[in-house]
């Protein structure tokens, strides 16, 4: 038996905890309900996109289209929002899956490399979104429950009155805190749990990692490689579609020009979360931690400015995110070199 080893995804969870603890110690209200919930509400979209990206990257592919697909889906779902919550939700999801299917077809049928195929879909989705929306944002309907998807707190109706009282205590505080989670956070959480179960406990999930670990070997082992690759791009499209639905619902409008740079944020989350960019190894939980870590950096910078001790502008967040990516990528490279040297 080998000794206990620190996996890259455990490391990022540790960093996340340390940063959160640091924030809690340093800033008032950092782990207050309001701050945590707004961080979660805003970052849920990115987390969902990163989850889809994680599936794609695990097979050794990449999906650059997620940002504009989310924008496209937000427009579609905004148009459908007058027909109800479900119509908006399903509409956005289907729009995303449609774009994902186009990616999948370009990659598995025309054998166009993922980088270029998804780049083209990115442009096409963005163009289609702008065409559909006439270059403007599309207001969602406030007559239906659609906006609850992004703005509501799913379980708040379960929240008893007393937790807001003086004598709520720690338990009551925690209960109120959790039941007050925003709806998008619940959606992301469920998606991540399902994603983790699929990757770790289904044959499909194992084939995703196997294909990324060795395409030719997987084929020789009798796995249907093309079907696996097809599926991950559809999943990624679906996640981007869901993010688009939340986007429309949260900001009250379908946003055809949103989504710029989301793909790279998602890639960074996945990589920082310990998933190998070359595919074959990775962690769903790590991706969530990676997305939260990159998200929390922004918040910390905000709070730091509030304290005014050292004034760091919010613009440092990109620098810090890049730095994280740099460290992770170099560590990954060194690690894989050592493995090669051993072999």
């Amino acid at each position: 038996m080998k000794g206990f080893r620190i996996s890259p995804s455990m490391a990022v969870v540790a960093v996340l905890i340390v940063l959160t603890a640091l924030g809690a110690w340093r800033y008032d209200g950092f782990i207050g309900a309001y701050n945590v919930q707004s961080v979660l509400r805003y970052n849920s979209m990115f987390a969902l996109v990163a989850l889809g990206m994680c599936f794609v990257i695990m097979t050794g592919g990449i999906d650059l289209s997620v940002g504009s697909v989310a924008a496209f889906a937000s427009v579609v779902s905004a148009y459908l929002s007058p027909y109800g919550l479900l119509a908006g939700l399903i509409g956005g999801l289907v729009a995303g899956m449609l774009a994902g299917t186009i990616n999948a077809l370009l990659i598995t049928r025309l054998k166009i490399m993922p980088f270029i195929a998804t780049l083209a879909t990115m442009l096409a989705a963005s163009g289609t979104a702008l065409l559909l929306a006439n270059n403007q944002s599309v207001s969602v309907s406030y007559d239906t429950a659609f906006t609850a998807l992004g703005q509501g707190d799913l379980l708040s109706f379960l929240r008893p009155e007393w937790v807001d009282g003086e004598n709520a205590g720690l338990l009551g505080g925690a209960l109120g805190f959790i039941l007050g989670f925003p709806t998008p956070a619940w959606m992301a959480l469920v998606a991540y749990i399902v994603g983790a179960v699929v990757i770790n406990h289904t044959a499909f999930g194992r084939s995703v990692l196997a294909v990324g670990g060795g395409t030719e070997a997987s084929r020789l082992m009798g796995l249907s490689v093309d079907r696996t690759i097809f599926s991950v791009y559809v999943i990624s499209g679906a996640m981007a579609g869901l993010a688009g639905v939340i986007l429309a619902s949260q900001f009250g409008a379908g946003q055809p020009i949103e989504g710029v740079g989301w793909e790279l944020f998602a890639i960074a989350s996945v990589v920082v979360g310990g998933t190998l960019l070359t595919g074959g190894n990775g962690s769903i939980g790590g991706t969530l931690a990676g997305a939260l870590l990159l998200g929390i950096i922004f918040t910390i910078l905000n709070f730091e400015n509030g304290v005014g001790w050292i004034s760091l502008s919010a613009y440092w967040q990109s620098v810090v995110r890049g730095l994280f990516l740099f460290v992770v990528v170099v560590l990954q490279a060194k690690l894989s070199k050592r493995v090669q040297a051993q072999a």
Partner: protein
Amino acid sequence: MPWPTVLIREAREQNNVFDRALFFQRYGVALAVVLLILFNFAVTPNFATAQTVAVNLSQICTIVIVGVGMTLVIATGGIDLSVGSLMAIAGALSPMFFTGQLLPMPNLYMAIAAGIFIPILVAGIFGLFNGWLITRFSIQPIIATLVLFIAGRGIAQVSTNGDLQVFKVPEFQAIAIGRVLGVPFQVWIMLVIVAAAAFVLRRTVFGKQVLAVGGNEEAARLSGIPVTRIKFLVYFICGMCSGVAGLIVIAMNSAADANLIGLGMELDAIAAVVVGGTLLSGGRATIVGTLLGALVIQLVRYTLLANGVPDPAALVVKAGLIVLAVWLQRQEQA
């Protein structure tokens, strides 16, 4: 002649099979440009005016300049996602020099010289950082350059605190909007860079070595070609090209906005390179093709706009063009 004529004929006949593919590979983009121009002559009103030519050329200047660097990088089998961020760094840095904000200069022209050369060099140095990550740690270029894609814009934003730097320095802005022989100066810069790079790629040892590294890295190494140095150099050049493009952008706008300079440029440049006929896997590259590729994309967009098709539709068409170009490459390799 040492070889019998039969053999020459044989070799030619062998080529015949590939002639059509070869023809499209070589002249497809040029043909597309010619067809688009002819189409516009016939259909689009006021197409054959100096104004139209200038507008279309100005639109592609920065894309082509960055595309030149990108072509060299792709020729070695790499890719550079950081170009837009490097444009932002150069663009954000430059005004600090020519407005004398950073350090006082004896006269305006020295300040402008510093405001031009130092930012370009800084962008080049960031390019070297890309090269270092790629060669030292064998990190895939797409990931290695992602680091600066993210951090680079942050650096630009931090150095200006995210503020818009507005200026009115006609002497500096001449690099974009000045005219020589009626043609905008930025178009001249583009043409000079294209000509120089095309010359380097075709005529110099460095150019041949770039193609050899992309065509067969192991063979290049076994032939004593300094593969690492070549890679460093192409990313350095690509960084400097981005720097030049960044300066042109701020000169055109008389303002530097670190949040916006070069946003999305990496994709425009890659699209131009691919449509131009450079092989994404490396080993075959054409600088003039990149110019033509950018021109095709721009002309398609212009044609659609001038004929009443909304702008976003051009994006969809551009996507189709990219897929078509790459698909053609695949067919020809298979």
